[in-house]
C-alpha cells in the first residue's frame, strides 16, 4: 500500500496533465507541511480538505475503493453491488429553519448512497453527546431521524451512544453510515462525464448554507431562509427510470456546486461549461450572499443534486426533477465540453466568460 495507488497525476507514465491540472498541482508542492495543526478549512470541502484526504488518509488507509473518492463506494458482495457511505454531522445550531441535525444526518447519508444510483436500504447511527445536553433535545433529534428515515424509505438498524464530559463536545454530534443496492446495469461515476452531456441541477443553490449562516450569525433577511435538507433517493430512482444511462450524479454539499463540478471535470478530464443565468438561486439567498460577499456557487446544499447525462435525455430528466417536490426549480445549467479539460467555465450575463475555481477552505465573508 502507499504510494502506488495514491495519485494518478504522480504516475510518470500517465497522460500528460493538461494546463489546469498542472496549475493546481504547482500550487501545492509540499502539502500539509505548512499546517502543523488542523484548521477549520481542512473540513470546508475545498482544496484543504482534498489535501488532507489525499496526503494523509489515503497513504495510511488507501485501497482502490477508497481511492475513488466518491460520496459513496460501490463494492461487490456475493454478486450484489452494495453502495456504502458514512458521514458525520456537527452542524450548529442543531435546529434550524427547514431541518435539524437529525434529518440532516439521515438525508445526507441517504443522498450520498443515492448518488451511486443505489436504492438506500439501511443506516446506522452513532451519537456523541456532551454531558448536560437536554434529553428533550436528544428526543427531538431522534424523532427527526425517525421521520426522515421513514420518508426516505430506509431503516436505522444499528446505533451507538457515547457521552463525553462537559466541555469536550459541542452538544451533540451524529454519525450515520449506510448501505444501498445498486440496480443492475447502472454505472454512475464522475469519470463517466462525456463531452456533449447535459448538466442538470435539481434546484436553487445555497439554501442550506445560508440558512445555517443566517441563524448562526443572527442575520435577518426579508424572508426566513430555510435549509433544503431533503432525501433524493426517489428522485434518483425516477431519473434512472427515465434514463438508465445517467453518467454522473453528485450532491453539491460542502464546497457547493463549484467544488462538485470541479471534481467531476477533474475526474473525467473534461471541461464543464455553465451559464450564470441558468443557475437557479432563490432571491433571498442571493441577497444574503451579496451582503456577506459569498458566491452561491460555493455555498453548501443538502437537498440538491447534479445530474450529467447524454443530451438526448436531458428534457425527460428535467421533467422528472421538476415533478419531484425537491426539484421544482430544476434547470439544465450547461454541458460537458471537450475544451478546457479539468476546468469549469461560466458564461456571464454579459456574454463574457470566467473560470470557476474550487474554494480553498472555508468561505470567508468579505470585509465590505
Amino acid at each position: 500500500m502507499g504510494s502506488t495507488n495514491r495519485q494518478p497525476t504522480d504516475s510518470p507514465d500517465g497522460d500528460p496533465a493538461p494546463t489546469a491540472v498542472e496549475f493546481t498541482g504547482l500550487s501545492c508542492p509540499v502539502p500539509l507541511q505548512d499546517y502543523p495543526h488542523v484548521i477549520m478549512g481542512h473540513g470546508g470541502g475545498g482544496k484543504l480538505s482534498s489535501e488532507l484526504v489525499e496526503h494523509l488518509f489515503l497513504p495510511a488507509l488507501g485501497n482502490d475503493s477508497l481511492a475513488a473518492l466518491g460520496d459513496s463506494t460501490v463494492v461487490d458482495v456475493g454478486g450484489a453491488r452494495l453502495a456504502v457511505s458514512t458521514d458525520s454531522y456537527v452542524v450548529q445550531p442543531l435546529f434550524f429553519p427547514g431541518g435539524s441535525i437529525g434529518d440532516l444526518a439521515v438525508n445526507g447519508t441517504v443522498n450520498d448512497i443515492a448518488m451511486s444510483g443505489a436504492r438506500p436500504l439501511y443506516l446506522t447511527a452513532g451519537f456523541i453527546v456532551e454531558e448536560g445536553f437536554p434529553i428533550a433535545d436528544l428526543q427531538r433529534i431522534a424523532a427527526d431521524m425517525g421521520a426522515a428515515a421513514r420518508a426516505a424509505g430506509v431503516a436505522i438498524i444499528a446505533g451507538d451512544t457515547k457521552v463525553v464530559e462537559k466541555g469536550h463536545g459541542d452538544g451533540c454530534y451524529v454519525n450515520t453510515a449506510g448501505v444501498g443496492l445498486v440496480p443492475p446495469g447502472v454505472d454512475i461515476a464522475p469519470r463517466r462525464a462525456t463531452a456533449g452531456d447535459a448538466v442538470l441541477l435539481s434546484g436553487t443553490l445555497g439554501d442550506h448554507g445560508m440558512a445555517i449562516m443566517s441563524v448562526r450569525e443572527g442575520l435577518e433577511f426579508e424572508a426566513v431562509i430555510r435549509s433544503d435538507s431533503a432525501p433524493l433517493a426517489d428522485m434518483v430512482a425516477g431519473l434512472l427510470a427515465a434514463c438508465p444511462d445517467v453518467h454522473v450524479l453528485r450532491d453539491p454539499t460542502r464546497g457547493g456546486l463549484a467544488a462538485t463540478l470541479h471534481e467531476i471535470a477533474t475526474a473525467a478530464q473534461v471541461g464543464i461549461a455553465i451559464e450564470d443565468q441558468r443557475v437557479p438561486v432563490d432571491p433571498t439567498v442571493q441577497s444574503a450572499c451579496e451582503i456577506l460577499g459569498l458566491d452561491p456557487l460555493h455555498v453548501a446544499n443538502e437537498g440538491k443534486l447534479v445530474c450529467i447525462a447524454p443530451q438526448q435525455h436531458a428534457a425527460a430528466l428535467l421533467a422528472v426533477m421538476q415533478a419531484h417536490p425537491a426539484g421544482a426549480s430544476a434547470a439544465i445549467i450547461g454541458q460537458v465540453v471537450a475544451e478546457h479539460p479539468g476546468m469549469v467555465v461560466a458564461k456571464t450575463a454579459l456574454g463574457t466568460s470566467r473560470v470557476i475555481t474550487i474554494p480553498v477552505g472555508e468561505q470567508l465573508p468579505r470585509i465590505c
Partner: protein
Amino acid sequence: MKHLTEYRDGQKARRLADEIARIVTRPWAIMEVCGGQTHSIIRNGIDQILPDEIEMIHGPGCPVCVTPLEVIDKALAIAARPEVIFCSFGDMLRVPGSTDDLFKVKGAGGDVRVVYSPLDAVNIARDNPDREVVFLAIGFETTAPANAMAVKLAKEQRISNFSALVSHVLVPPAIEAIMNAPGNRVGAFLAAGHVCCVTGYADSPPLCERYGVPIVVTGFEPLDLLEGIRRTVLQLERGEARVENAYPRVVAEQGNPAARAVIDEVFEVTDRAWRGIGVIPHSGWKLRDAYRDFDAEAKFAVSEIRTCESSLCRAGEVLKGAIKPNECEAFGKECTPRTPLGATMVSSEGACAAYYNYGRFVQLGERQTAGS
C-alpha cells in the same frame, strides 16, 4: 431583485460597451480604485467587452491587501495571547503575516472569531468581562464609521476590556501618491462609490485640477461600472477633468454627515504605511488620544516585530497599477489563494485573487498588448 438584477442586464451592458467603443478615439488607462470594483470587473468580464483602447488598471483599494505587514504581525501576536478574544472581518484571517496567518493562530489554540460588524466585538467584550476582546479595525473610509462607532460605544458604556487594533487607510492621499509616482500611466479614476457614500466628493475637485484627471464616482454592478467608464471616456475625449457622480442612487456630494461626524470624533489623520507601497503621508486614521484606553497597540505592548515579506511577491507593483497580476512571475505558481505570498492573493477583492479565481491565467497575454 430590486437594485441588483436591473444593474446586471446583459443587453444594456453590451449597449453601454458599444457606446464607449463609439466615443473612444485613442488609448486611455483608467484606474478603478476600489478592490470591490476590480472583483466585479473581472467576475463579470467587463474588461472583455470594452474596446481595446480602454485599459483598466486595478488600484490599491483593497483594505485587506494594503494593511501593513507590521499590523498583521501585531495582530497575530495579540491573537495568540491566552487572555485575548481576537475579532476580525473574515477575509483578514488568511492574510499572510511574516510567518503565520490568523487561521494558523486559531488552529494552534488562539481564540480568533469572525465578526460581521465591529459592534459584535463590543457585545462579545460585554459578555466576556474576564477576557480582553480586540477588534482588528482596518479598512478604507467605508468601514470607518462602524469601527469608530464601536470604539465610541465601548467608551460610553465603559467596556474597558474592548480595544481596537486600528489601521485605517484613506483614498485621496493614495490617488495623489499614484499620480506623483514616476512613470504613472493613469489618466482617470473611477472613485469608489462606497467610500464616497461616507465622505462625499466635495474634496475631489482640487485633485482633478492639480493632476488634470477626471474622477467619476462609480458603483459596483456591471451597468454602474460601464456607466462610470462611459462618463470617464467622454471627459477624457473632450479634454475635461471634472468630478462627476455616476452613482447618485447611493452617493450624495456631502456624503453621510452622521458617519463623518463619528469618524471625526474618534479618529485623527496620521501617516500610514501601505503594504507593498510604503508610507504615504496623511493617508490613514488612528485613534484620537481621548480613546487611547481602547487602542490595542497601547494596551498590548507588542514589541520585537520583525517583518519579513516574500522576496517573490510583486503585490506592490500590482497595487500601484504598474503590472497586471498575471505578469508577476510567482502568479499561479508559488503564489495561489492556497499559498498566498501577498495579501492581494487572499482577499476576494485583491487583484491577484480576482485574476486567479476567475481564471485569468488562461487568457494570459491576450489583452496585454491592448493599447500599447
